[in-house]
């Protein structure tokens, strides 16, 4: 009988993941051979990931992954990959990200597809195009990790009721966890790659026909890499606001797709589009987007925006970017009125659909919570009534509904604690901030969104905060990405005991 968590097994499997990090690191390395960055900036991390990866892999020749080990493996992988992935920022030694805590922050923001930045100046004057490309790639890799996490791992761990998604995932014919993950991941990664290439092609195409002069090949690749994972990094300081309206219109549907359950998108693309309008979560997600866009439109049309086309585009874009947790900006929403800002702030707590690359609470958890709420009201009037919650055709077990509501409570609680610490720390270092700014910083980190309001607005950055605040934010990004429970269980002493 196994008594404890099999750490050697976890380290060995982590090593197997880490050594593969050398492949994407090779991309900016090859680029740097012809560019301006010193190739060593990428060669050293390549060597580190290969050597450490292979060494760790040797620790256990026959690793057997159990339920307990999975929690540690997932949490450790995100952390370890982030640490190695942050090396290029340190080695390049340019700008604010050359400081260790900032490099760690930038890397975690990348791999969790958050999009919060501590780059003091986002420009090719300070940073080489190679480093900026690597920054985009980290988000794209994070997105691949999330697909596996959301579709194949979290359902198995029943995190916050995510076992519901499993029925949708392709490759369900496999029973054992490993081949199933491999098969599912392969299918959905293919979809992810195809969508990324399509977006990149469209963006560059719009440049070639003269509709978007700024969207050159470099920018087309860079933005394709951060849209599908709902990342939000951009090599442009002004984010998507730096581009023409055509670019913004192209990105809108791709952000929308990125916020949908990838398994559902896959089913819709492989000949069953009717699945879409039978899916309660998809319908509710679409409803929230349209409804909120209409509200924002009503609030901004006539004051912030005079032209209807601009008002519609920016309202839709900004609602999408907050709900899907992409974190792009098509306009500096810090200049919008406070009503619109409040609505956008509320949208930070919705999140994409379960099984998408979006972060946050996730639409289906809200559906379950709303239904639980009405069930509670009903049973208050009819104490003898026994009611089941249904989402579409699925019956939600009481236990699942309970896990979902607890997950939301824990999420709100963690967000508030995070905001409190940031508040106290900011006061300590003499940074005077408004409540909305602090709240939005915490919400943007735990929800993997990126920009918030005021000091952390879309044209600003997270540089002003103290190191302790940044550590808290790194933790919030990490925890939010792993849907809290996956990370929190490994902090329980009992996890490590028999």
């Amino acid at each position, binding site marked *: 009988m196994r008594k404890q968590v099999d750490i050697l097994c976890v380290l060995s499997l982590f090593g197997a993941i880490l050594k593969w990090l050398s492949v994407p690191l090779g991309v900016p390395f090859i680029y740097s051979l012809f560019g301006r960055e010193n190739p060593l900036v990428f060669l050293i991390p390549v060597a580190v990931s290969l050597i450490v990866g292979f060494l760790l892999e040797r620790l256990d020749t026959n690793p057997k992954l159990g339920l307990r080990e999975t929690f540690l493996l997932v949490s450790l992988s995100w952390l370890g990959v982030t640490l190695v992935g942050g090396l290029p920022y340190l080695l390049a030694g340019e700008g604010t990200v050359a400081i260790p805590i900032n490099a760690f922050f930038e890397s975690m923001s990348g791999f969790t597809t958050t999009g919060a930045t501590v780059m003091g100046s986002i420009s090719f004057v300070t940073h080489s195009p190679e480093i900026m490309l690597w920054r985009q790639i980290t988000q794209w890799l994070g997105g691949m990790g999330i697909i596996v996490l959301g579709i194949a791992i979290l359902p198995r761990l029943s995190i916050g009721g995510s076992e519901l998604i499993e029925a949708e995932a392709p490759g369900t014919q496999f029973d054992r966890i490993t081949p199933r993950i491999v098969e599912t991941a392969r299918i959905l990664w293919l979809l992810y790659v195809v969508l990324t290439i399509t977006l990149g092609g469209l963006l560059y195409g719009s440049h070639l026909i003269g509709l978007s002069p700024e969207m050159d090949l470099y920018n087309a690749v860079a933005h394709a890499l951060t849209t599908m994972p709902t990342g939000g990094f951009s090599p442009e300081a002004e984010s998507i606001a730096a581009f023409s309206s055509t670019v913004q219109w192209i990105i809108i549907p791709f952000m929308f797709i990125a916020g949908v359950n990838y398994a559902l998108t896959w089913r819709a693309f492989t000949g069953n589009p009717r699945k879409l309008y039978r899916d309660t979560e998809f319908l509710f997600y679409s409803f929230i987007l349209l409804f909120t866009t209409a509200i924002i439109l009503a609030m901004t049309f006539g004051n912030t925006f005079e032209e209807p086309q601009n008002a519609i585009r920016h309202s839709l874009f900004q609602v999408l970017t907050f709900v899907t947790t992409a974190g792009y900006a098509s306009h500096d929403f810090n200049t919008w009125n406070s009503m619109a800002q409040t609505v956008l702030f509320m949208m930070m707590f919705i999140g994409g659909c379960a099984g998408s690359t979006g972060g946050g609470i996730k639409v289906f958890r809200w559906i379950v919570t709303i239904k639980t709420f009405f069930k509670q009201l009903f049973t208050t009037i*009819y104490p*003898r*009534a*026994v*009611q*089941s919650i*249904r989402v579409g055709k699925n*019956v939600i*077990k009481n236990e699942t509904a309970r896990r979902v509501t607890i997950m939301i409570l824990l999420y709100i609680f963690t967000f508030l604690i995070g905001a409190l610490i940031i508040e106290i720390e900011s006061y300590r270092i003499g940074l005077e901030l408004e409540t909305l700014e602090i709240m939005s910083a915490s919400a943007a980190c735990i929800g993997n969104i990126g920009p918030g309001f005021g000091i952390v607005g879309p044209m600003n950055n997270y540089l002003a905060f103290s190191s302790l605040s940044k550590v808290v934010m790194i933790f919030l990004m990490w925890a939010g990405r792993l849907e809290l429970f996956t990370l929190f269980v490994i902090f329980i002493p009992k996890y490590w005991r028999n």
Partner: protein
Amino acid sequence: MTILIVGAGQVGMSVMEALSDDHEISMIDRNASSLDHIPFEVNVSAGNGLEEEVLKSAGIEEAEIVIATTSEDHTNVLIGSMAKLLTDCFTIARVSDPSFANIWDTREGAFGIDAMIDRSKLTARQITELLWFQSTRQESINEEMYCHGKVKMSEFKLESGSDLIGKKIKQTNKYSELNIVGIFRNSDFMLVPKDTSFEEGDRITVFGSPQKVDDFGISIASTEMEPVQDTFDILGGGDIGYQTALLLENTPLSIRIFEEDPDRAQFLSEHLSQAMVLQADITERTVWEEENIPESDMLLVSTGDDATNVLATLIGKDYESPRVVSVGHEHQYLSLFESLDVTRVVHPREVVASSIINYIQDSYIGNVTELEHESGAVFEIKIDAESQALDNTVEELEKSFDQPLVVGAMVRQNHSIIPTPDTSIKLGDQLVILTTGKAEDIVEKL
């Protein structure tokens, strides 16, 4: 015919009594004393019906029909399979757990059983039939069952206000699982007039599975008719109560189920999407008063316990509930239930027994129904290897006769299907045919 009945309980005895005059019957029961009162002409053997020796000594090798009706589902299913191994007979098994029937329904001849009699589903169907005439279903004026209850033919009269009036048959594709075969208009019968529009007062003849035909009755009901919001309370959420609620899922009835066991109540709430489930003890008067059970238009008392059922029925009588249907399980209390003077008493074992008896009697009598004014006939026919219709399409079959005929429905592998003109006819299919000519001529040719 030689018939072997395993299990001399209430069902076995009823079946034996009904069939012993015309057929040669053997009976097996584990308990020798329960075989004491069986008449001489029936062969009896005491023993375990699962043992080959016992089955052989009771003459299973000569039996044409084997009926497994012991008190245990597993035993009945196994006996059916055993019988199939030993001899080429028609096997009938009785079950009370719907899970067996659910498997059997979707897989032809599963477990080697030719006919599975599901106690709870059958009883539920009978209960819903008792209830129908109070709801908004368009009453059928005439109905017949074919192919062992897999195909139903119903005749509906179109009242003013029905959605169907003014439409043509070919426009009614939303009823794809139904076959509208003909119209009676002013006592003239027309076969599939695809280009004729429906008129008020038409009587239309429809074929399909019983469920689909009943649903059709609901959907064509006049929209001018005020939908009666009948309330229906089911007291006891066992198999019978559950199956009844399941059958009434898509009706305008407002249903509540009362169940005392919390786990069962949870199960019901997860599996029924419309009925409201309440966890309560129905023998408590406070429950009746607080939940307004006496106000309900209809009551079904259906727990698994006769004593509880009698008590609940008496409480219902006391509150003067307008319509009470009670389920009585044990034969010995049946007269007691009847003395309660309720609307109806349903006796599941009797339902099962009569269903088995019908099965045996139907199997060998060609069911021919004459339409009124001798305007036509409906009959069923099984396609054997010599039939000239074999491997033809339905269209070819319909055109190969001088007399007009329509294949209304067919049963293949235990499922009723609605044929299209290019459905090909296969060995073993059962066809239900409607003709305006002479049925005998067609049967002869086929």
